C-alpha cells in the first residue's frame, strides 16, 4: 500500500509508464526543471533526462500540435496544459487534428496522445482559472475524456491514457492534488477507460459523480438517512451506460452531481439516457445538481456557494425522496 497525494500518484504513473516504454515523452510549461506547477512531475527530469522531459515555451498551440505530430509518428507524448483554460488557444490541435487523425488517414494512423490538464474551482483562482470545461470536448468523435476523483483514480486513469492508442484527455481537479489516499499501485490499479465504478453501494438513489464531486457525493451519502449508491463515472467519453442502467434498475432514482454550470453539462447526457432508455425503471424525475450558469466567483464565501457542497447535495436528494419532485436549484429560490 502507498499513501500518496494525487500529484504524487500522477507522477508515479507517468514515471512507471516512461520506464516501461521509451516512446513516452513528457512536455509542458514548467514541468521539467520546476517539476510542474502542481508538482506532478517531480523527479522526472533527473530520472529520464532532458531528451524525454522538456520544458516548453508558453505556447500551447505549438506544443500540443507537436504532440500530435510526435504521436502520429511513433512517440507517446504526455503533455500538460497547466490550467484547462489554456487549452482554448490550442483547441484546433486537439479536436480538429488529433481526434480526426485516425479518420483522416483512412484508419492507417493513430495519435496516442495524453493531454493532462488541471481543472476546477475551490482554490480562489477566479473565473479564468477555476473552470472544468469538459463540455468543450464532449461530443468530439475520436476523443476520450477522463476525470480523476483522487490519487488512486488519477493513477489508474493516467496509466490507461498513456497506454491507449487514441488521444485521451485526463482532467485533474486542482483541489485534490494535495489530498492523500491509500491504494496499491501496480497493474491491478490500471483502469479501463469507459468504465465507471460503484464507490458506495445503496438502494434508494443512484448518484452519478465525476472528479471533485465524487467526494462530495460520498460525503452526502454517508451522512444521509437514505441509502445512496455513488458511481464515480471516471470517463465521460465514452461513458459507462451499463453501470448506470444496472444501478437505476435497483434504485429507480437518478441524481447527477456536477461541478460545471447547468447548461450543457455532462449530466444532461446521463439524464437523457435514463429518461429515454431506463424510463420504466424511474420512480422519480432525474435531478441534476450543478453550479449556476455564471462565471466561477472569486472569494471564499461565493465560491463555496457556487460549488455544490455535500450539505446541499444531501438536501437536494432528501427533498427528492420526500416529495418525489425535482427540488429547485438554490439560485432559483434567490431569483
Amino acid at each position, binding site marked *: 500500500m502507498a499513501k500518496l497525494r494525487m500529484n504524487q500518484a500522477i507522477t508515479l504513473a507517468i514515471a512507471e509508464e516512461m520506464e516501461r516504454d521509451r*516512446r513516452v*515523452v513528457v512536455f509542458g510549461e514548467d514541468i521539467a526543471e520546476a517539476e510542474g506547477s502542481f508538482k506532478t512531475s517531480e523527479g522526472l527530469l533527473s530520472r529520464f533526462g532532458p*531528451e*524525454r522531459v*522538456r520544458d*516548453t*515555451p508558453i*505556447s500551447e*498551440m*505549438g*506544443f*500540443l*500540435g*507537436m*504532440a*500530435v*505530430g*510526435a*504521436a*502520429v*509518428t*511513433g*512517440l507517446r*507524448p504526455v503533455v500538460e496544459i497547466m490550467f484547462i483554460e489554456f487549452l482554448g*488557444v490550442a483547441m*484546433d*490541435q486537439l479536436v*480538429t*487534428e488529433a481526434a*480526426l*487523425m*485516425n*479518420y*483522416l*488517414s*483512412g*484508419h*492507417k*494512423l*493513430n495519435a*496516442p496522445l495524453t493531454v493532462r490538464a488541471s481543472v476546477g474551482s475551490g482554490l480562489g483562482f477566479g473565473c479564468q482559472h477555476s473552470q472544468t470545461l469538459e463540455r468543450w470536448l464532449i461530443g468530439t*468523435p*475520436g476523443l*476520450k475524456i477522463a476525470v480523476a476523483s483522487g490519487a488512486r483514480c488519477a493513477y489508474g486513469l493516467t496509466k490507461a491514457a498513456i497506454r*491507449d*492508442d*487514441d488521444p485521451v484527455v485526463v482532467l485533474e481537479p486542482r483541489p485534490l492534488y494535495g489530498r492523500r489516499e491509500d491504494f496499491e499501485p501496480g497493474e491491478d490499479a490500471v483502469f479501463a*477507460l469507459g468504465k465507471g465504478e460503484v464507490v458506495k453501494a445503496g438502494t434508494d438513489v443512484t448518484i452519478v459523480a465525476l472528479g471533485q464531486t465524487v467526494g462530495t457525493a460520498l460525503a452526502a451519502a454517508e451522512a444521509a438517512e437514505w441509502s445512496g449508491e455513488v458511481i464515480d463515472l471516471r470517463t465521460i467519453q465514452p461513458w459507462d451506460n451499463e453501470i448506470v442502467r444496472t444501478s437505476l434498475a435497483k434504485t429507480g432514482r437518478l441524481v447527477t452531481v456536477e461541478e460545471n454550470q447547468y447548461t450543457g453539462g455532462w449530466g444532461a447526457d446521463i439524464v437523457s439516457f435514463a429518461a429515454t432508455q431506463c424510463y420504466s425503471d424511474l420512480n422519480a424525475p432525474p435531478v441534476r445538481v450543478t453550479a449556476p450558469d455564471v462565471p466561477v466567483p472569486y472569494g471564499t464565501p461565493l465560491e463555496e456557494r457556487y460549488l455544490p457542497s455535500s450539505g446541499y447535495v444531501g438536501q437536494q436528494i432528501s427533498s427528492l425522496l420526500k416529495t418525489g419532485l425535482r427540488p429547485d436549484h438554490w439560485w432559483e429560490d434567490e431569483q
Partner: protein
Amino acid sequence: MSQGVLGTEQPLGRRAAVQASRTERYARMVEIRLVEESVLKLFGEGIIPGTTHTCQGQEAVCVGIAAATRPTDTVACTYRGHGMALALGATREAVLGEILGRQIGCMGGLGGSMHLSDPSVGLLPTFAIVGAGIPVATGAALTAQVLGTDAVAISVFGDGSANIGAFHEALNLAAIWKLPVVFVCENNLYGEYTRIDRTTPVTDIAVRATSYAIPSDIVDGQDVDEVYAAVAAAVERARQGGGPTLVEAKTYRYAGHSRSDKATYRPAGELDKWLERDPITLFGQKLVSESAADQSELDAIKNHAGALIDQALELVLASPPPTHAQMLAPITATGR
C-alpha cells in the same frame, strides 16, 4: 521517354522515380497540371459538390520537395495538396478517387479534396486548417530526434499561414530544440482572396526566420531544380543535426483560392506575367537545351500523362461512393 515515366507503379515506385530522374520530375509536374485541370472541369460539370483548391502554377515546389526527401520523411502540407500528394507518390486513382468521393480514394472517399493522405510515402493527412500542420510537422521531427532516426519532417504551407500563431510557435520550438524539420513556405502572393501586401508587413516570409535564429533561403519556386537544391540542402542540414531551416519558394497560383473564386482581385496582367514563367514550360526548355530530352519526348510525356489520367478517371468513376458502414466505422484505435 524513360522507362516507367508516369506508369502505373505503386506509391514507393512513383516516389523513387522523381528522386532519381529529372525527366520524371518533368513528367510528374505535367501529371499534376493535367490532374488539376481535370478536377476543375469535373467540379464545373457538377460531378462533385463542395469545393476544391488547385495548385496550377505551383507544381515545381511540390515536385522539388518530393525529389529532395525520402518516403521515410514526414510531410505535412495544406488543403491545396493534390500536387503534393501526387508528387510524393500517391497514385492518380487514390488522389482523384478521394477528390471525387469514391471508395477507391485514399481515405475511401470520406475525406474529399482537402483531405488526402498516404502514410506509405510519408504524407500526413493534408491539413485543411491554415497553419495547423506546421507544429504537427515539428512534432514528427521531435520523434526523429528522440528515437534517434535520421528522418526529417517537412512542413509545407502558404504565405497565409505565416501570420497565424502556429507558424511562430512551431518555428520557435523547432529552433530551441534544434529539430530536424524544414519549413517550406509556398509564397503564392495570396492568402485566400487577399494579396499579401495587405496582410503582411514584410515581402519575404523568409526574414521571419531571423526572429527564431534559424537559417533561411529564398528560391524561385518556378524552377524545380532550384527548389530541389534548396530543400535538399536544408534536409541534409536537418539530418546532420543542424536543426531547422525556413525555405521560401516564390510562386503563383494560376487559379483562384478555391473553385468558386474567379480571382478578380488580381491586378490586370499579373497572371500573364507569371504564365510567361510557367514552371513546366521553363523546365521543358531547360531539359531540351541541355539535350536531356527533345521536344518530341516532352510531347509524348504529356500525351501519355493525359491517357493515364483518363484511365484513372475511368476507374474512379466506376468506383462507388462510400457506404454507411464506412461512415459509421469507429475512429478510435480501440474501437475497431
